[in-house]
């Protein structure tokens, strides 16, 4: 038994090993729930001041699910502590938040809505508001068959919507599927990406988001106590500046970079990573190639956002 299983996995590797997988062109989700989630996602009713919706910090149409701000501005213009991650392709991440403190999408919804810097609501307030809202009463009745809206349903609908936010058919995915060729520069960029070891952390569908890794392996990266790193959870010295690996999908569109949004350009971000984890900045031509490769990761706008 054991031998057979091991053999099977070895055979699996024989026909070609590729550390990055294309985003599936379609994902299964409950359309009704997702549409309801979409409505909620864009509705400021979920925030205390009725001004802040999820989409306030995760602009799906223009900013690839981010807000292009270093740190988000939430309730009463309070500034958050961290850079807003994109909500695109989150379904492929193994955990959520910079330090992976949240297990899944549904649980994630509880965070920002109750956070004082973000939407500053309580679960009860949300339920009370929605249960007074004729449209939502009707919609939830249709979708969940419930007479009373609960927060769990709200989280479920939003999570279902976020599940649908995938950006397939990027140039790179098409290349992986053998549909097109990349340019010489882009190919060389991808090879450099592997040769320089970036791939050892940025792998999988999302080129990241599937393990915790350290920034500042070779050169020490400055550490601050309020960094949203693994140390906040484990309190192990080793986990200082260990983050869930950022996702590189649509990376040219999700600026500014790093957990504090302190890095404005992609070039700068690549060089910082090279400096801290390799010891040297990259020469101009190598940088250009890597940037060219990274730009092939821009996918299509999610299907659920189209046609509107």
């Amino acid at each position: 038994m054991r031998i057979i299983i091991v053999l099977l996995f070895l055979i699996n590797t024989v026909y070609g090993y590729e550390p990055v997988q294309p985003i599936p062109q379609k994902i299964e989700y409950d359309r009704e729930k997702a549409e309801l989630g979409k409505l909620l996602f864009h509705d400021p009713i979920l925030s205390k001041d009725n001004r802040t919706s999820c989409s306030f910090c995760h602009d799906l149409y223009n900013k690839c699910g981010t807000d292009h701000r270093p740190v988000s501005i939430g309730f009463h213009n309070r500034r958050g502590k961290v850079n807003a991650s994109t909500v695109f392709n989150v379904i492929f991440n193994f955990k959520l938040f910079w330090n992976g403190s949240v297990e899944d999408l549904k649980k994630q919804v509880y965070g920002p809505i109750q956070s004082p810097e973000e939407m500053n609501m309580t679960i009860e307030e949300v339920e009370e508001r929605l249960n007074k809202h004729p449209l939502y009463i009707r919609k939830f009745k249709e979708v969940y068959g419930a007479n009373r809206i609960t927060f769990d349903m709200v989280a479920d609908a939003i999570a279902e919507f976020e599940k649908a936010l995938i950006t397939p058919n990027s140039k790179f995915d098409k290349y992986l599927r053998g549909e097109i060729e990349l340019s010489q520069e882009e190919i060389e960029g991808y090879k450099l990406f592997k040769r320089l070891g970036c791939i050892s952390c940025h792998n999988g569908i999302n080129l990241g988001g599937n393990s915790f890794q350290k920034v500042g392996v070779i050169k020490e990266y400055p550490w601050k106590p309020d960094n949203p790193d693994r140390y906040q959870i484990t309190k192990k010295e080793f986990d200082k500046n260990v983050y869930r690996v950022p996702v590189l999908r649509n990376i040219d569109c999700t600026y500014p970079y790093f957990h504090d949004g302190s890095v404005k350009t992609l070039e700068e971000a690549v060089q910082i990573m090279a400096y801290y984890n390799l010891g040297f900045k990259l020469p101009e031509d190598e940088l250009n190639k890597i940037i060219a490769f990274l730009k092939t990761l821009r996918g299509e706008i999610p299907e659920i956002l189209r046609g509107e």
Partner: protein
Amino acid sequence: MKKLYIVILLAVSVTIGLIIFNQFTKQFVEVSSQTLDKIKDIEKGEYKIESNILKSSFYLYFNYDVIYKAIEEIKKDIKTLKEGHLGNKFHKGSLKLIQEYEKLFNKKVEAIEEFETLNSLIKNSQIYIPSLALRYFKLAQKPDIEYIITMNRVISTTFILKNSQDKSFIDDLQKDINILKKYRFKNPELQNFHEVFLSHLDVFAKNFPIYHQKLQFILEESGNRKLINKLKDTFLKETREESKIVTGFSVASTGLFLTVLGYLAYLLVRLEMNNRMLKKLQENLETKMVTDELTGLPNRRAFFIKEQDYKEPTFILVNIDNFKHINDLYGSNFGDILLVQLGSFIKQFFEKENLKAEVFRLGADDFGVLYENLRDKTVYIVEKLIRSIEEHLFVIKGIDRGREIEIELNIDVSVGVSYEKPLLEKADMVLKYVKKRREKYMIYSSDLNLAKIIEDNLRILGVIKYAINNNKVKLYYQPIFDNKTKKISKYECLVRIIDQNGNILSPLFFLPIAKESKYYGTITKTVIQKAFDRFRNTDAEFSINLSSEDMTDKEIVNYIYSVLEKEPDIARRVTFEILESESIKNYETIYTFVKNIKNLKAKIAIDDFGSGYSNYSHIVNLEPDYIKIDGSLIKQLPYDLYVQIIVSTIVDFSKKLGIRTVAEYVYNEDVYMMVKSMGIDYSQGYFLGKPSEKCCIKKNIN
């Protein structure tokens, strides 16, 4: 009935129970196998994780998605198991094991995450170190051979270390790192390179031992698989225990099912037994219903059933003559024994004749014999049967005042035969006809017109009814002359009825029929009433006819008493003409009646004296005022010496007894002359006066 409902209820509940049990078993098997599959899935998942960890450690870079997906699957399976089937009370052991396993697995996941971090760290440096080393040659104008050699050795050590996973090479690495650390370069770029290079080596030196340890832990020391195997064994053991419940339930419900089935069978058997008993009872009843109790022969009811089976039946109806007299003479017990003997005699007769016949007792002394066809032999059979019966000496034992006596008896029978249905009715008709005609037997045929006679009787009965209701009962009066004075002495009242068409009917036609009906009493009363009305205002005497039936009818008798008492003036003038006949059974009643009306001053005449049945002793006892000599004698009087002797004897003894005589039927002068010469006191007849409605001498008012 109650039991039946209980059985039905039981059957329904057992059926429902079996269905539920079936579902339960199915679900049990399904859930158990699903649970086992999940446990096996976890085991497979463990292998999958391990093989992928191995791969990720082997390859320079790896897709970590594969690992976290496998982890998620196991987590999902654990959750399913914990919240699912393992939650029931039989799987407490398994639940504990899965909880234990979850803890272990979470630890393993933690180790995997740490491993991934270290793996990437080490791989990152491992990939980079060779190209980094090349920088040295670019930067150093005069490369230090020893530095290069050490650098080379260090690079190869990292590869050996990484690919062999042999910790002993760490010392070699550390030794060379220490050698390299002694180097200082004046060129700041070279110095920077040197420091970066050392940093990468440090990544190896510092992290590899932990990395190695994590890998060992994940692959070999976590003990997860052992736990999973234990879980599998425990679960199977528990499931065997659990299945005992299912088996127990199965045995119980099958047992219950069989019990209900058995009970049902018992009820059915009992039902069948009851049915048989009922059937027997019914048969018995039926036999009784169609059997005559006294003779044991099939009865009248049986006859009506059996007669339908015959296509060309011959039916013989046998009736004992004067059976009533036999009963009166010897008692009904005797009669009963005679009937039994006659029944078996008839039966034996036909057996001896070798004739397949059925013998029935149809009524009191009516026996019926039924057989198929043989009509050409009917006369022979019937005559032989009658002869045999009448020649047979019936010996009947009886007890008389404590003494056993034997009576020997011959009986006479009459027979009616019919071939046509309705057999009994037609045979009965001819039998009555036979009795009237005093013959022995007769075969029914439509020529006999018996039906017409019956029809006529019915018509006459209708006329009687009509006459009574419409005051059409009339009286005719015939004068009776005193032979000495030659004047009318009195009138005889004669009854007539008038039908719907105005025809006048004589009593000859309607009285016999009226006697059999309820109208007879009414007619008598009407006659008495009308006669009294007619003669109330006269001085004339008159006579009214009374039959023996009238005199024994209490109602009529009392009526007569009351009118006589009420009107003594009329009572003095009335004479009741009574008929001596053999049908008088109780002379005492008659005597009493006669005595009573005599006391009320009415007179008595004996009618039709000298014809047939005449008993002198009775006449003496009745002490009549008149004797009316029968017309059949009077009309022969002038021409028959023998009759003259009889009549003179009657006249002679009447005179001696002080009874006056009346001659009826005086229809010519010869007779009249003879009557007068013989000393008869009164005369009556067509020669002297016909009956008519006209009457009579008005009251003589002085």
